[in-house]
């Protein structure tokens, strides 16, 4: 009885998720796909999306790793507040984030005026919006990974004369790699799909700030076929990213469970 209910619920959910995806794939203009793909507008959006996503993921990993490590291993006053601020973009409407970024880094913005810089409507703004929105998707798993490292191994390294930096590089980092990779892939996927904050903060300039999601939105109003091609491309990229992540963490996960006799 409950089993039948579970199967029914599963089937319904699968249809709910599957039918839209299938509809999109079925509407792909097979005949003109190749020609469509080589259109400069689509190529431009694709290139911009890949470059900005790569850059923002890199920034997130570089800045987020130490933050995640500190959050996982230290306690300090106001830690809860810091954690909540970091998590906030996960639930914040992206347009609100975009507006906040605009008020901070815009021409009349707080930082903009102080430093005399102008970020909006540049590629840098796209990257900044992606970093803002996607960082928590990296920090959360990274932090969990660092928390999961057995303290006894860190202690053992200390009694073996290893400095904190050496221990981090040779013990903590290798053991946390699966979590960091998973976090980076999640952040990357989120950055790739970023729309609201980007269009609010960076605008919608083809070749400069018009990433794939923005291009889909624009094309949707004039050229449905172009929108479909872009959407399918985006979907394939995201699907590949998540599938690769699963394969990678699956492999590393089983390996790391093999090598953790300490965690009995």
């Amino acid at each position, binding site marked *: 009885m409950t089993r039948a209910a579970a199967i029914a619920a599963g089937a319904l959910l699968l249809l709910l998720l599957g039918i839209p995806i299938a509809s999109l794939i079925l509407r792909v203009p097979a005949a003109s796909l190749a020609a469509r793909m080589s259109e400069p507008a689509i190529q431009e959006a694709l290139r911009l999306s890949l470059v900005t996503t790569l850059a923002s993921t890199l920034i997130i990993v570089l800045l987020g790793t130490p933050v995640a490590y500190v959050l996982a291993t230290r306690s300090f006053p106001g830690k809860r507040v810091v954690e909540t601020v970091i998590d906030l973009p996960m639930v914040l409407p992206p347009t609100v984030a975009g507006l906040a970024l605009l008020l901070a880094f815009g021409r009349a913005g707080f930082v903009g005026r102080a430093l005399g810089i102008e970020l909006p409507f540049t590629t840098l703004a796209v990257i900044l919006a992606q970093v803002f929105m996607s960082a928590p998707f990296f920090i959360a798993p990274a932090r969990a990974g660092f928390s999961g490292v057995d303290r*006894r191994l860190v*202690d053992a390294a200390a*009694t073996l004369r290893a400095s904190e930096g050496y221990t981090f590089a040779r*013990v903590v980092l*290798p053991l946390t790699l699966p979590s960091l990779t998973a976090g980076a892939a999640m952040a990357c996927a989120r950055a790739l799909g970023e729309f609201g904050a980007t269009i609010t903060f960076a605008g919608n300039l083809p070749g400069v700030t018009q990433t794939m999601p923005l291009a889909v939105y624009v094309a949707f109003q004039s050229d449905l076929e172009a929108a479909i091609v872009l959407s399918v491309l985006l979907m394939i990229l995201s699907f590949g990213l998540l599938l690769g992540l699963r394969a990678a963490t699956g492999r590393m996960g089983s390996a790391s469970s*093999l*090598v953790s*006799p*300490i965690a009995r």
Partner: protein
Amino acid sequence: MLVGESGSGKTTALRLLAGLLDPAEGRIEVDGETYFDSARRLSVAASKRSIGYVAQDYALFPHLGVLENVAFGLRAARVSAAAARKRAAALLERFGIPGLWARKPDQLSGGQQQRVALARALAVDPRLLLLDEPLAALDLATRRVVRAELIRLLAELPCTTIYVTHSPAEALIFGHHVAVLENGRVRQSGARDELLRHPRSAYVAEFLGLNLFRGVVTSRTEDGLARVAVDGGELYLAEDAKEGDEVHIVVDPREVVLSIERPQGSARNVFFGPIEELAPEPPLGDRLRVTVASRPALIAEVTRAAASAMALAPGRMAYASFKATGARAYR
């Protein structure tokens, strides 16, 4: 040798020494070098202390091979990779682990893991080696073999070793100098034989497995023995204690003779009661500790052969006796 029940603070003591934990106050000095001094607000980091530490579960690095584990401390100290590997290999060879160098710790037996952990700690030449229950993580069958090897290895070490255990037997076999820990405090510390002969508290006596009685000398017999009233009965001692003296009396279980018939010999202390328990004395192999619920109750240690000859079993009535000279008393 630091011995105490679980929760008595053994591991904490080691962590304090290793620098993984700082005491609220006090001073830690090893070999003339001060590592911690609350008065001077001094605390040398764990990585700067010349102390090797082998944790109870060995804490081998799961992602590194055996050789890399042992070479870890040398590499951290910027010894070249080639030199570190050479030294690690030599240590592993000496500890009887040749040819498993690429294996990960989880592919080793418990005994091998222990030796790798020991080699890893010794690779950096510590002045002091801390071993936390090195046999606890092993199953019983392995423990017997590993114990013998460990005795041999530790005897060859150039550095002082502090060995923590909850097992009095282990403490007595391994330790030259034994400290008994109870509730975070050292109850008694001294040479092993000194502790066995003169346990200063019931806790230490019971912990080390001796019969300890407390009593008052009630009178002296014509043949010069002291008659002592203890909880549950009376003992005779060949000691010159005076009437009214309060004394502690220690009887080594090996001095207590068991028999089914009333003993005919010269033993002055003869007690009769049901056998309560027979416990093997594992470290000594072929011996049994027999508790007789006489008044007072006594623990005797007999060989397995003697026990089976007398058909000793729980519930069987037996005589437990010892000579007046077999008991030691002190105030």
